């Protein structure tokens, strides 16, 4: 009898905790601007937990630069997160190593979420699709544009860039802006974003389609690189060394926002920097990457994925779905956190003050018309990227010309094998 009472008591003690135990989901993502992102995510998770009382979300926020280390350490340590944000340039690494679960079974189960894929920019979907399976749901977009300071343009007596402007227009404007400013223009030096300007100037894709060799040695690629290198040589654009100095000088904001450079090639996320209080530059707008030999709009951004090994894939998918629905995407856009990956919601992301005025033409239309997912973002690319970037740094610093840079690039990367997976 005594034994029975003890057993019953234990069952009564344990049962409620089982009945009311929540499914815990760890969500790992990065931040660039914690003052913007943290409140938004906190609110989003609170609302999710209210709507899903059986799920509790533990949010792990990490700086962008430490995301990879954090994820590797968690996975290798046997405590992987359930959901992870996956930037499009590293998605192939994670997918090829079997880190992510295919989302297709869950998309079949939740057609209302699957249908939203039709509203996502095709190049964003392609970034996470391997052999027909989707491994992450695109959440945002990160296209490029040219930001220009209207006051500096007025000083130089220049007309503002139009939607149909060309690379020759850009180069001429940059030269004329140098007369009123220390520099006329600068371009993004990361290989990821350099590609848009480089393509417009005639540069070929970084690798051939079979990923056997780089294409920097092609005459049109050398010409494109030399044009950019000449901008640095002539002092129209800062050298790599000067750009580092200027970026430090900008002290937490961007050189364009600090008024140091009148025209800058940047990603869509720069808009939030320009809306921070106290930013010197007030009168500005954006223009699409100018028309040239080849129009490309780099498909970048992040997607949310379920990590293999999760004990609760269903609950993990529910968390991801929360960020795909209209209300969350709209709230995200209005908070200035990210720009929705949903085409129909794109224009909503334009800030309330309608700056930039040509937001849609610069970022949305170009994503629809020219969105491109680099096919060389495959396992091995991270190492290749580092080697090419260090050679190009020497080019931007005027240590050699584009032909020599192309030769050095081929030399540096010849031993590294890229594994096609798309």
């Amino acid at each position, binding site marked *: 009898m005594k034994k029975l009472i003890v057993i019953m008591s234990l069952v009564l003690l344990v049962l409620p905790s089982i009945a009311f135990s929540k499914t815990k989901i760890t969500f790992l993502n990065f931040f660039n601007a914690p003052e913007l992102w943290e409140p938004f995510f906190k609110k989003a998770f609170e609302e999710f937990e209210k709507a899903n009382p059986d799920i509790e979300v533990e949010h792990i926020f990490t700086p962008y630069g430490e995301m990879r280390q954090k994820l*590797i350490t968690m996975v290798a340590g046997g405590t992987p997160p359930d959901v992870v944000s996956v930037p499009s340039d590293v998605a192939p690494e994670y997918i090829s190593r079997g880190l992510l679960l295919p989302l297709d079974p869950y998309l079949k189960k939740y057609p209302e979420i699957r249908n939203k894929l039709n509203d996502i920019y095709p190049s964003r979907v392609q970034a996470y699709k391997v052999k027909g399976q989707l491994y992450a749901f695109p959440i945002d977009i990160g296209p490029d544009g040219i930001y220009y300071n209207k006051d500096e343009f007025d000083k130089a007596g220049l007309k503002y860039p139009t939607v149909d402007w060309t690379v020759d227009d850009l180069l001429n404007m940059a030269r004329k802006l140098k007369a009123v400013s220390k520099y006329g223009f600068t371009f993004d030096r990361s290989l990821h974003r350099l590609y848009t300007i480089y393509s417009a100037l005639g540069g070929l894709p970084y690798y051939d389609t079979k990923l056997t060799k780089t294409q920097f040695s092609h005459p049109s690629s050398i010409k494109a690189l030399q044009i950019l290198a000449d901008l640095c040589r002539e002092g129209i654009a800062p050298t790599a060394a000067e750009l580092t100095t200027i970026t430090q000088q900008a002290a937490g904001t961007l050189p364009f926002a600090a008024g140091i450079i009148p025209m800058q090639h940047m990603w869509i996320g720069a808009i939030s920097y320009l809306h921070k209080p106290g930013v010197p530059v007030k009168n500005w707008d954006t223009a699409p990457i100018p028309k040239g030999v080849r129009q490309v709009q780099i498909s970048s951004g992040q997607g949310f994925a379920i990590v293999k090994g999760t004990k609760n894939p269903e609950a993990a998918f529910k968390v991801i779905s929360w960020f795909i629905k209209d209300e969350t995407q709209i709230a995200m856009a209005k908070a200035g956190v990210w720009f929705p990956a949903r085409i129909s919601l794109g224009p909503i992301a334009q800030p309330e003050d309608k700056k930039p005025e040509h937001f849609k033409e610069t970022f949305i239309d170009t994503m629809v018309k020219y969105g491109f997912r680099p096919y060389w973002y495959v396992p091995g690319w991270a190492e290749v990227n580092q080697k090419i970037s260090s050679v190009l740094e020497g080019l931007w610093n005027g240590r050699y010309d584009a032909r020599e840079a192309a030769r050095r690039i081929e030399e540096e990367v010849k031993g590294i094998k890229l594994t096609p997976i798309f």
Partner: protein
Amino acid sequence: MKLIRKKRSALAREEMLYGYLIVGLWLFGFIVFTAGPIIASFIFSFTEWDSLTPPKFIGFKNYIDAFYSDELFIKSLYNTGYYTALVVPLNLFLIILISNALRHDSKFTQALRAIYFLPSILPGVASTLIWMYMFNPEYGIVNWALTSLGLPKVLWLQDPKTSKITLAFLGLWGVGGNLPLFLGALKGIPEQLYEATRIDGGGNFACFRYITLPMLTPIIFFNIVTSIIGTFQVFTSAYIATGGGPENSTLFYVLHLYNNAFSYFKMGYASSLAWILFLILLLLTVLQFKLGQYWIYYEVE
């Protein structure tokens, strides 16, 4: 004669047990957090492992690739050797100078000792960020001082020719860390030796050259050994200030190891780099011990 094993008394056994229990905690920590990872990294160094999928045994391929296929391995070794060759002698020179100047007690020297020691306990990241701004070619205080003296601006961290030297300056910022050690060693030198030297007509230089330096040789040796081990593992300043650039001029060995482990998904290869570093440091340390017999003076001799 038969050897009789003495049976331990109950008290002795109890004491032995307590001894193992006390040591056991440390031993457990050592096995789990130090020895275990060391053995694991040794095993992984013979594998192709990306940290995310099971490792694949590849024998000595990682070690062969380091020497024959990885140009950045040689570059990073060169950069690290250059940095070590700059920092270790300068560090030693400065610490001897500073400790000798501050050896005599007074309120003034006590305050100075604290001032010199402080940088060694400041967080590395914070110090690096401060120095980055100080060495900013356009707006940094260092170039401002140079231009005030009519000298040209230097690009410092932005120029491959000066980037390592600049990081070496950062490395010397914590020179006061060894001050307590050197001050203690100086205080241990018998005063009679200096008196004898003065009686024989020796001045300050003679005291320093024939008494102070020889008596300091054991601590100098310790400083050299630990400095070389420390400088070969330089990471924070390069990671924060330059990321290995410009043009890989500050790509130090441990930074290259880190990139392979966490950016290129080559944890197996990174493990082999760690063991190569260990072997290099082991060889250097053994060499120093062997050479030490020719110049280290131990008081008992």
